[in-house]
């Protein structure tokens, strides 16, 4: 039971707004010490795992080229493109992106879009422009919500598309785990059962996008 102290540290630390890197270190020590490790053993175990997980941070290599394109005017061009297409609303753009992200992820193409390479330089500016092209200038709080919705749409499209692909990590994890537990399944058996939830995710999030878009348009028009 004492081992759960580390979990409590994470929850309380995040809620209290301490720097998350320090919260993680504190939780690591709480968990390790509760499990009977010495402080040096905790630090070694954490250091080993940190080093083995460097690939998680290696994806930041994409930032320099995104920065280059932004300096050359990528965000502004993305906005102009949407303004030039009359009749493209926030709803069309975002539902279209949700569908694109779910379908490509379902084909295993999870890395062709994402928060760094698509949402910040392209989708978020396009979404703002789509709202502004039928209404007026967005107020700051709405602008923030539009950007947050763009980030959310990318995540939801990714999560509820990728499990339809047979060779994705989570499917392989399930096949391996079930095999150890004496249940033999093929990846396809699992991946086809991701389809009903994917459809439900599209319906729910798509409806929310349309409702939010209509509310934005009404407010901008008023």
């Amino acid at each position, binding site marked *: 039971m004492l081992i759960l102290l580390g979990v409590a540290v994470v929850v309380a630390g995040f809620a209290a707004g301490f720097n998350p*890197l*320090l919260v993680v270190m504190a939780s690591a020590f709480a968990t390790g010490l509760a499990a009977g490790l010495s402080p040096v053993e905790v630090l070694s175990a954490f250091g080993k795992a940190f080093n083995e997980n460097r690939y998680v941070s290696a994806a930041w290599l994409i930032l320099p*080229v995104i920065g280059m394109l932004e300096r050359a005017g990528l965000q502004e061009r993305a906005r102009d493109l949407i303004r030039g297409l009359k009749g493209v609303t926030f709803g069309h753009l975002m539902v279209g992106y949700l569908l694109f992200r779910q379908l490509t992820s379902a084909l295993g193409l999870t890395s062709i879009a994402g928060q760094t390479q698509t949402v910040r330089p392209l989708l978020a500016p396009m979404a703002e422009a789509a709202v502004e092209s039928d209404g007026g200038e967005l107020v700051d709080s709405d602008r923030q919500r539009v950007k947050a919705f763009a980030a959310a749409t990318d995540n939801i499209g990714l999560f509820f598309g990728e499990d339809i692909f047979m060779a994705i990590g989570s499917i392989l994890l399930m096949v391996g785990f079930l095999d150890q537990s004496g249940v033999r399944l093929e990846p396809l058996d699992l991946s086809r059962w991701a389809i009903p939830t994917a459809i439900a995710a599209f319906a729910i999030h798509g409806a929310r996008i349309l409702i939010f878009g209509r509310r934005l348009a009404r407010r901008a028009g008023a």
Partner: protein
Amino acid sequence: MIKLGFVYILAGLVFAAYALLSARDQTNPRRWRNALFWGLLAASFLAGDHFGDLGNGVLVLVLAVTAGVGKLGQGTGGVALLADRQASALRFGNRLFLPALVIPAVVLFGTLVVKTWKLGEVPLLDPKQATLISLAAGALLAAGAAFALFRQPMITPLQEGRRLMDLVGWAALLPQMLAALGALFALAGVGKVVGDLVTTWIPMNTPFMAVAVYCIGMALFTLVMGNAFAAFPVITAGVALPFLIHRFGGDPAVICAMGMLSGFCGTLMTPLAANFNVVPTALLELKDRFAVIRAQTPTALPLLLINMVLMYVFAFRPHG
């Protein structure tokens, strides 16, 4: 064989450049703190395999303290003016999208085609890491295309990369830190304790009750662990296998597939899924750190409910 090591060296050199540029940036009031932070990360990427476990542990601790006891800073100089960016956007038009399309094209080509190439018996790309290697190659080729099209100075990608990296700040390291914390949780047996707690305290007399406990358990445990992959083996071994599959005879394919997706509903609601929920708020310069989670929760909760209904309907139909 091209392995992840090449990507690590490249990333290490880029972070080292960020550290040097930070140290020289007079407009950043906390330039030495930033230089230390990115410098330590560069050292980890370039030489992490030579520090030993304790050495790496000390490095992480210093990194966390550097970012944690005071804030990292941001330079104010060198930002391209909006008017300049607009003029540039007009001048280059849709050509601006070309380098941005190089990245997904290279990732596709790398993971679908190059992954199958072999030199003799050895695959050209480390098959487990083909996506990340392709992403790094895509970034390099896109930068090459951008140089050719826009004739920017050679230092531009590093300066602009650092500007964006400073915007993200310590949040950039959070996903890797949480991955390491997950490993420590596994070592300490946190999962088993939680699994035992769930099954001891909640009665599971009917299939519907077991479905609800499994789906909500997956979502809640993912909320705490930040990762459905960590929750899946624990909650499935504790709830799904003994109750749903063995006692009530449910279809394991339906139960596991939808159980994992219930976990994904939890991922949408936790700051511990830093890559998806915290990093974007920094990238998009949002004031509220929980803005993305707030935008996702009204989708995640009804979806979790529908997922339970779907599991109940499909798992207990007659199956062969």
